[in-house]
Every structure is written in structure tokens, then in C-alpha cells.
């Protein structure tokens, strides 16, 4: 088994059943995992901000930075390995926020909203979700099984179903 680390504003896709994709320290950012159980293709995206209109040039250079450019790229990258949209299983984690008395610091909440809007518009169901709150999350996806694991300080490691 080899661990492939996905940094902030990055995504990776694999069809190697020895691979585990992992992204550490999700705060307000969101980790999106997708998996096609037939093609045995999976991917993990770690996006940081909701909307690419903030900086279209940056979004062009690095689409994985934003929800609205990163998520489509994640799906397309999986199609290249033979994945089919109808079979893709989507699980998401992250989007935490600090204890807020205003909307100023709600990047986590905005990330969740932007992501869900995109999935609704494209008729994609979110199979498993652990979002919001104020905790630090680490997410793993095993390419051999498609199983997604979530690690937090208070709950340890558990499967995200």
C-alpha cells in the first residue's frame, strides 16, 4: 500500500489498487472523494474556496483551488480512467468554521453551500458527508475498495459511510 498525499488546492486520481489517497488538516477547506466501483477508479480533491470568480486567472492555473472549477475537473480526471458518472460514489468532509459572530469568517459554510449547489445542479447524490462544526479532519480513500476513512482528534479513525 502506498500513500499519496494531496495538498491544499490539489487533486489526484488513481486506478492503482495499491494506492491510498490522503489529505491532511482540512479546516474550512473540503475534501471530495469520488469512486467508481466497477472501474476501480478513485479521486480526491482538496479545494479551499467556493467561487472561481474571485480570481479567474488563478482558477485557470490551478482549478483545484475552487469548488466550481475543482469538482468538474475531479470528475473529468476520473472519466479518463474509464469511470462513469452514473456509478460514481461521492463522499465529502471538511468545511469547518470558527465560532462566529458574523458571516465574515464563514468560508467553511460557503464552501459547503457552493459544493452542494453544484452537485444538485448536476444530479449527483452525496453518499457520505461529515461537514461543518469546528474540527480538524483528515480524509483517506482506498482505491482497492473505495472505502473512505475520516480521522478527527475526538473520534479517532472511522469509516465515512
Amino acid at each position: 500500500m502506498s500513500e499519496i498525499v494531496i495538498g491544499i488546492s490539489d487533486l489526484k486520481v488513481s486506478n492503482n489498487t495499491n494506492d491510498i489517497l490522503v489529505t491532511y488538516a482540512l479546516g474550512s477547506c473540503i475534501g471530495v472523494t469520488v469512486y467508481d466501483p466497477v472501474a476501480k477508479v478513485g479521486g480526491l480533491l482538496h479545494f479551499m474556496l467556493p467561487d472561481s470568480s474571485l480570481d479567474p486567472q488563478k482558477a485557470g492555473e490551478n482549478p483545484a483551488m475552487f469548488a466550481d472549477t475543482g469538482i468538474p475537473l475531479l470528475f473529468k480526471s476520473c472519466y479518463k480512467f474509464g469511470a462513469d458518472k452514473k456509478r460514481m460514489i461521492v463522499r465529502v468532509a471538511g468545511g469547518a468554521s470558527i465560532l462566529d459572530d458574523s458571516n465574515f469568517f464563514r468560508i467553511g459554510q460557503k464552501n459547503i453551500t457552493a459544493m452542494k449547489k453544484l452537485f444538485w445542479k448536476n444530479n449527483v447524490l452525496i453518499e457520505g458527508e461529515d461537514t461543518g462544526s469546528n474540527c480538524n479532519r483528515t480524509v483517506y480513500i482506498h482505491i482497492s475498495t473505495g472505502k473512505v476513512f475520516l480521522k478527527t482528534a475526538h473520534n479517532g479513525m472511522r469509516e465515512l459511510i
Partner: protein
Amino acid sequence: MIYDEILKSVKNIPAFPAAALKVMSLIDDPDFSIADVVDVIKYDQAIAANILRICNSAYFGLSHKVETVRDAVMRLGQQNVIRAVEAAGVSKFYKKAKGYGLDANKLWEHSVGVALMSQILSKRIFNCEDARLYTTALLHDIGKVIMGEFVDESFMKIYDIVSSKGISFLEAEGEVIGIDHAELGGKIASQWNFPADMREAIVYHHRPDLIPNGDNNNAWLIYLADQACIMMGIGLGNDGLAYRGLSEAIVRFKFRQRDFEECIMMMLGDLERAKELLGIV
């Protein structure tokens, strides 16, 4: 009892590097010359070596490799030299830091992130960079270096209070341990004889709204920079995002959400270019 142990650890913390302290005091002297800075640095080999390493990082964008301290100081200019000296002097305290569920070096990465973000915010809001702000930002979490040894064994206790009472990790830390990491940072700053404004910014970096009868813009900038790094997960520990959002920060600086997000993007770029800062020992 834990409290007494913590105070003992503060007393035992190694002295702040003399060269870094001297350079810090030079900032306040309008007449300081490059030769003064070189004189201070050349006697501290660890700092001198690190200065060269930092100067050659992409962050400073120099076209030729810098070989000597004098060269480095000439090429970088005063503000950048101060920054490099402070980073080189401070890093050793963070390198061995344990606790908060963080791997080695992560607390240092967080500190560098906050320091870089503080400069981006200062430039955007006040149209200037500020070496003193940078140094303070590097040190804002110095209390965690000592607190880390104690916080992990009490983590579930602290976490339970955070969830049941809906208070911040900082407040729960204070309840369970008897002191929080910001206050503890202030004690270390006193031990090191830091100027009052720097000590204040460290003590109040999570609650600049509570600064008694005073105005400390640097405390507010460090607060904002810290929130940005926490939200982006840079050196994020098991205290997570359980800190208070203060909307006063926006009103004070007439800052829009969009400005904040743009600054966050810039910070991640700077952090990428400043990798050498993270590697120094």
C-alpha cells in the same frame, strides 16, 4: 500543580537569541546602518547560516546566489534582513514543539504562515510592511511550545467543555489547565524582556477586543492572519477551529470578505515560495 510545572518550564526556556534581540532593538533606531546589522549577525553562526539559506529562497526573488552575510544584508534591504534574522532566531523554539496532535515542524509552518499573512494584510490595509509585526506574528503561538507538553493529556477534558459549553478552545484550556496558551506566551515574552506592545499582541492574539484601554493594530492583524491560517488548515492542530470570530476586525479595517479571500490566496503563494523558511533549523 500543572500550573506550577508550567511556570517552571517558562523559567527554564532557553534565552532568546541575543542577535535576534539586538536586531529587534535596531528596528526602533532610525539611524541603524547595514554595518550594525552585519556586526550583530556575524557572531551567531547558526543565524548567519540560516540567513544565507533564507535569502536564497524564492520568496526574496534574488537572481544570484548570496554567499556572505554582508552580501545578504546588502541585497535584501533592512526590512527583509530583519525578517530573515528573526525567522532564523525563532525557529529553534518551534522545532522541538510537541502537542496539539501536531507533527514536528507543523507549529513552525503555522507561525511562518501567520507571519507572511500579517505582511500581506499590513500591505493591503496600511500600504506598508512591518518587520516588528512580522516578528510578533512569528512568536504569537510561542505559548504552545510549553503548553503542548500538557494539553494532550487533558485533550478530551478540554474538548468536552468546548462542545458542551460552546466556548473556545482557549477558554477551555484556561478552565482545565489554569492558564491558556496566549497568556502563557505573554509570560515567555516577559521572561525574554520583549517590549510591551509585542507582549500584548501575543497575549491577546485570540481576543484583541479585550486589550485593556488600548489600541494595538498589530494584535488585530495577527488575529486576522491567525484565523486565515487556521481556516486553511496550515499547521492546524487538534484544537481545530474552536476559536472566536470577531466581526469588529472587519469594521476596524473596512475589510470585505472578498479582500480577505484574496489575501488568503496570496498567502498560500508566499508560503510556497518561502519553503526555505520552513526548512531552517
